[in-house]
């Protein structure tokens, strides 16, 4: 069964058709890449997958079940998480607090429980904190737990944003341009990290950097002018004439 299926997605902004009948499927423990020239509709497709944009037609299917009117706040409940291109860290909250906001909401005690600081709420609080620290530690940034994001270098902040997405233990992760602003060495580390994540989850990835996409993806969907122009393994896509034409002059290899 597929982890996520987008089928027949069409999105219009006024007179502009941003996506037309776009479909893709992400299999279990797979990394699925979405690439395409600027303005091809990659970000719009991503926004449909996380509920920021409602498609005019088509639907989102999660593990065989259609999701009606997906809203962003439903993501954790569906076992999904998304990172943002702009990271979207809360600047005036510590790294640890940032990650704790993302932590699993099922484990939480209700409104009144936390307001009255009942013992159970205290235990939950500690459990959330421990889990957030563990994820930060996994990504090698636990030592920054008490710092505020604006004081940290960009690559560290990227890891914090990733930790915040991972702390809810999703089995489908949507990564939006994870490599932007990273050096070549950092990008290699990121590639290894993404491959390692597939042991626990599937990844849908939008990315500009071709070498990273070709290295980590099992499957790639190529968009141009809002339509799917190619789909397949990195090798298939790399040699597809339509892709070469769309990227005319750009290096696909």
């Amino acid at each position, binding site marked *: 069964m597929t982890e996520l299926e987008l089928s027949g997605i069409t999105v219009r902004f006024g007179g502009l058709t941003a996506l037309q009948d776009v479909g893709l499927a992400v299999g279990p423990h797979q990394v699925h890449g979405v690439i395409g020239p600027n303005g091809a509709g990659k970000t719009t497709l991503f926004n449909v997958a996380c509920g920021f944009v409602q498609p005019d037609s088509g639907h989102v299917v999660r593990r065989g079940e259609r999701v009606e009117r997906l809203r962003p*706040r439903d993501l954790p409940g569906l076992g999904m998480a998304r990172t943002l291109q702009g990271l979207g860290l809360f600047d005036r909250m510590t790294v640890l607090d940032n990650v704790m906001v993302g932590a699993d909401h099922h484990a939480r005690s209700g409104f009144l429980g936390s307001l009255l600081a009942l013992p159970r709420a205290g235990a939950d609080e500690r459990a959330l904190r421990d889990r957030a620290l563990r994820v930060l530690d996994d990504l090698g940034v636990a030592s920054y737990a008490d710092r505020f994001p604006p004081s940290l270098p960009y690559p560290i902040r990227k890891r914090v944003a990733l930790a915040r997405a991972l702390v809810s233990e999703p089995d489908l992760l949507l990564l939006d341009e994870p490599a932007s602003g990273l050096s070549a060495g950092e990008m290699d580390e990121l590639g290894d990290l993404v491959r390692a994540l597939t042991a626990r989850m599937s990844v849908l990835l939008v990315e500009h950097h071709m070498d990273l996409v070709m290295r980590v993806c099992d499957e790639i969907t190529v968009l141009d002018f809002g339509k799917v122009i190619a789909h397949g393994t990195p090798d298939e896509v790399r040699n597809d004439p339509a892709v070469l034409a769309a990227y005319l002059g750009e290096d696909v290899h």
Partner: protein
Amino acid sequence: MQQFLNTALTGLTLGMVYAAFALALVLIWRSTRIVNFAQAPMAMTTTFVALVVIDAGFSYWLGFVAALLSGLVLGAVLERVVVRPVEGKAEINAVILTLGLFIVLHGLAAVVFGNRYRSFPAPFGLEGLSVGGTTIALNGFGIFTIVSVLLVMALLVALFRFTDVGLRMRASAFNQEVARLLGVKVGSMLTLGWALASLVGSLAGLLIAGGSLVHPSYMDSVVVFGFVAAVLGGLDSPLGAVVGGLVLGLSLSFVSGYVGSQLVALAALVILMLVLTLRPGGLFAQAPERRV
């Protein structure tokens, strides 16, 4: 020396009330970017609720609790029913809405509670305490004022710093879209924010009213002072609101005591102008959020 001490004590007590009121404004501004001009008549309304309870023969404390609880409910209901439709729209919509609420609550209070002055009891003595033979300008109710505001502030700090709900409220206030993505029910957090703000405002209303006269417009001047205090502190900072309230209370008390009580309102505006000119972001301005 004794006049100085007494003026300072009066200013401290008053400053605490302004601080509470400013805190109510800041709580709402932080989460919804709305300056809630209706905070004054909201607090007036809940104080009248307390008066109704007390006049029905119940104790001051039952009235006190009833006012705080009705403040909590009033804030939540207003946010859900009245404010929700304008959230995220042009700022002027919200400003006009809260000004409209101001007028509506005033009108309703005049109809329901009567458009006249009524006296409001105080739970503690209003006689100045005597220290070493001299009477100082601090009475039992003044001490109650200071302690209750400090207690509420400590509870709020604990809520925001140390609880999961507080964490999610802060996240919602900073970036609603990201908070939603992380599964936070942002709408509930905004409702809770308005409810808590309204509760703190109600406390300020009760403290101003204690041992004094209430009328549908008795809180109106306080909204001006509370607003000045909040702007002094930077509108975004709860700590700033508290410090702003204390600075304003003390300054106005000294103006009243040493220059002339008729100049108090003018002095508040002069302070506001000075702050806005010298430190437009307020005394506790934080660096503007970085947009990456």
